[in-house]
């Protein structure tokens, strides 16, 4: 069964539409990763086309956008001392000092090689986890899936940046927003505020774009300068060459156990929902520093300070697909948007995907592998050219991106009210960013609410409230609470390595945690 699904996936992969879509997406992701603030913009733009694209085109393209961001986001971190995404904060610690010593090419090439190998570990995790997840899910009924869904939102809310209470409130708010319109069981209208527009509910596209894309773009405009101007780039020479590529490969091979360890940690934690990339970034950096024999140079230009987080990030990204595809529980912002994207395209992630769409899952795994390898290879060859993208100014980026997002917002319902929703949630998103309210639990609550409500109705109809006494439900609740406690401790540990500021699940691409608190 698995071999058959895998060979079907291989057959699908080697079609021109899948390969071209994957290539387009990967190029977009390479560009997005190098430009802080635009890493997910490509995915947002793609959402606008999702209604008209064939799933076999849309999904490889989306994977292509997502995966390379974790590779090229090291560029601004190393060359300019500006994190390309939330997952490269730790890379700056040693990457930027190395760059100032004229070792930028070596540092970046090491990051790329680590990303390639780390990504392979993530893909392997994904491959091994799918049959395992399938066996477990076949034993589950609607009560178990209901509890898993609720716990998923709860865990994400608990470990979110800001604080746990606000994360949980945001998750509940997201669920409430999803309930506007009509209920999925009998179709009666609710919370529509007496308007015809809201009878159809709030669209995922204007909601997501407003809550995330608009505040990020507005902040980009607020910076007013290109990333190259923002970073203290004076005196940093950057020339890439083949000798540095091979030197970096030797370095990564010499530190192969560190790469493997970091990737394993990234994959293990990435499988759990709710943990942000910046947490894993700092955690693996801190673990590397505390486990090597000679940590004196960490923070001053030790190549291992780049290798560890870089390999972990790519492993995490792949591993995060496990709960997203198997349980429809996204692990963070990127996966939440990908989950919504799949729903728009007509693919319902979750348990049914494991039983009815196994070949598609293997296709996704193959796309991740190819995108990761292709992205790393391209970055190795074209590092200088990609680095030049950091010279683009926000004033040049903002209008075309905003234009495309505006066009994307109305694709679902073709109503001008979609733009009103876009703006309203954009303002809410901006206020939430400024006041430290986490947004990721909100979008996860929004995406999961219809699924959870359906499972709730099925459960109560079939079992009444006695479902809470089912042994599997009790076990899942215990595991869920245990996972939440473990993740909160992991997050605290990562914060201690980082000196107090991480964005636990807020995949903020613009810099150090935008939601970190201070007294």
């Amino acid at each position: 069964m698995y071999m058959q699904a895998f060979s079907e996936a291989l057959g699908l992969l080697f079609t021109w539409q899948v390969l071209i879509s994957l290539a387009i997406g990967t190029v977009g992701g390479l560009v997005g990763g190098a430009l802080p603030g635009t890493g997910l913009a490509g995915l947002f733009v793609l959402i606008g086309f999702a209604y008209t694209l064939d799933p076999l085109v849309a999904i490889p393209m989306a994977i292509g956008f997502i995966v390379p961001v974790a590779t090229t986001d090291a560029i601004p971190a190393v060359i300019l001392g500006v994190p390309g995404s939330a997952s490269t904060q730790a890379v700056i610690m040693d990457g930027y000092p190395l760059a100032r010593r004229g070792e930028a090419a070596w540092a970046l090439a090491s990051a790329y090689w680590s990303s390639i190998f780390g990504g392979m570990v993530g893909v392997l995790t994904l491959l091994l986890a799918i049959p395992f997840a399938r066996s477990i899910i076949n034993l589950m009924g609607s009560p178990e899936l209901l509890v898993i869904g609720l716990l998923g939102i709860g865990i994400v809310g608990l470990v979110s940046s800001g604080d746990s209470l606000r994360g949980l409130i945001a998750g509940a708010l997201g669920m409430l927003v999803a309930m506007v319109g009509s209920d999925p069981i009998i179709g009666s209208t609710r919370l529509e505020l007496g308007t015809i527009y809201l009878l159809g509910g709030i669209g995922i596209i204007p909601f997501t774009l407003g809550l995330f894309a608009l505040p990020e773009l507005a902040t980009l405009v607020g910076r007013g300068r290109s990333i190259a101007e923002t970073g203290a780039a004076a005196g940093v020479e950057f020339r890439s060459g083949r000798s540095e590529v091979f030197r970096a490969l030797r370095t990564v091979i010499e530190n192969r156990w560190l790469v493997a360890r970091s990737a394993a940690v990234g994959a293990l934690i990435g499988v759990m929902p709710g943990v942000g990339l910046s947490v894993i970034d700092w955690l693996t950096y801190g673990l590397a520093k505390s486990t090597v024999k000679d940590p004196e140079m960490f923070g001053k230009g030790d190549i291992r300070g780049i290798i560890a987080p870089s390999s972990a990030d790519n492993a995490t990204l792949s591993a995060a697909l496990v709960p997203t595809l198997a349980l429809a529980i996204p692990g963070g912002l990127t996966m939440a948007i990908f989950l919504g994207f799949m729903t728009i395209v007509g693919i319902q992630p979750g348990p049914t995907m494991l039983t009815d769409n196994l070949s598609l899952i293997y296709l996704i795994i193959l796309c991740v592998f190819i995108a990761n390898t292709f992205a790393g290879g391209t970055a190795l060859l074209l590092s200088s050219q990609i680095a030049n993208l950091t010279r683009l100014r926000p004033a040049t980026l903002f209008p075309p991106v905003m234009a495309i997002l505006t066009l994307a917002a109305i694709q679902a319902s073709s109503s001008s009210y979609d733009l009103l929703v876009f703006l309203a949630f954009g303002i809410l998103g901006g206020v939430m960013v400024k006041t430290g309210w986490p947004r990721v639990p909100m979008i996860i609550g929004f995406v999961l609410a219809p699924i959870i409500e359906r499972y709730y109705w099925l459960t109560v109809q079939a079992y009444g409230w006695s479902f809470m006494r089912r042994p599997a439900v009790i076990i899942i609740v215990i595991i869920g609470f245990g996972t939440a406690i473990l993740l909160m401790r992991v997050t605290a540990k990562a914060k201690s390595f980082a000196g107090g500021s991480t964005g636990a699940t807020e995949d903020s691409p613009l810099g150090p945690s935008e939601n970190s608190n201070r007294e």
Partner: protein
Amino acid sequence: MHTRENWSLRYRARYPRALNWTVVSALVGLLIACAFMYAYVDAQTLRRDAGVFPQFVSLLGLGLFSIYLSSLFIKWCRGTGVSTVAEEDDDVDGLGVLRAYAITASLFLGTWLVGFHLAVPLFVVLYLRRYAKVRYRTLAPTFIGFVALITIVYGNFMATRWPQSVLEDRFMARPLQRTLMPLFQPLLDVWGL
């Protein structure tokens, strides 16, 4: 080193007590709590199957908000300092952020007034001219390019149904899409599309 003044930092330096982000955070929470309360009340009027879940989520949200408010109050009473919000990012000009929002709102208003085919390309070229100082010889093809993108890709290939603008409703016999498409049809004919 950046030289642009940060408007919000100057404001806070001048009026240090004027804005407490903790209070703003609590107000945001209050706004959210109002949404939960409305949802709970509205759900009471619904049929049982439709109303149970909104009631559950609303009560959960209200309960969590009460705990949050209590925790803020306790910290304030103890004088331990309430965790404030996002770090002030010296590199971000608050005025620039507000301007971005205002311009976005203007763009959306423009789409309602004159339609997407005109408002979006106009927005792009006007913004590029004003803030990126792009030359006119680059702006002209940019404008045409965006009109083509909207008309051909979105309007034709993706068959987007455009909301009717005030301009189309009051002053035009045909929608903008049908007016502009013939201009680009020869281009599509050349490519056999």
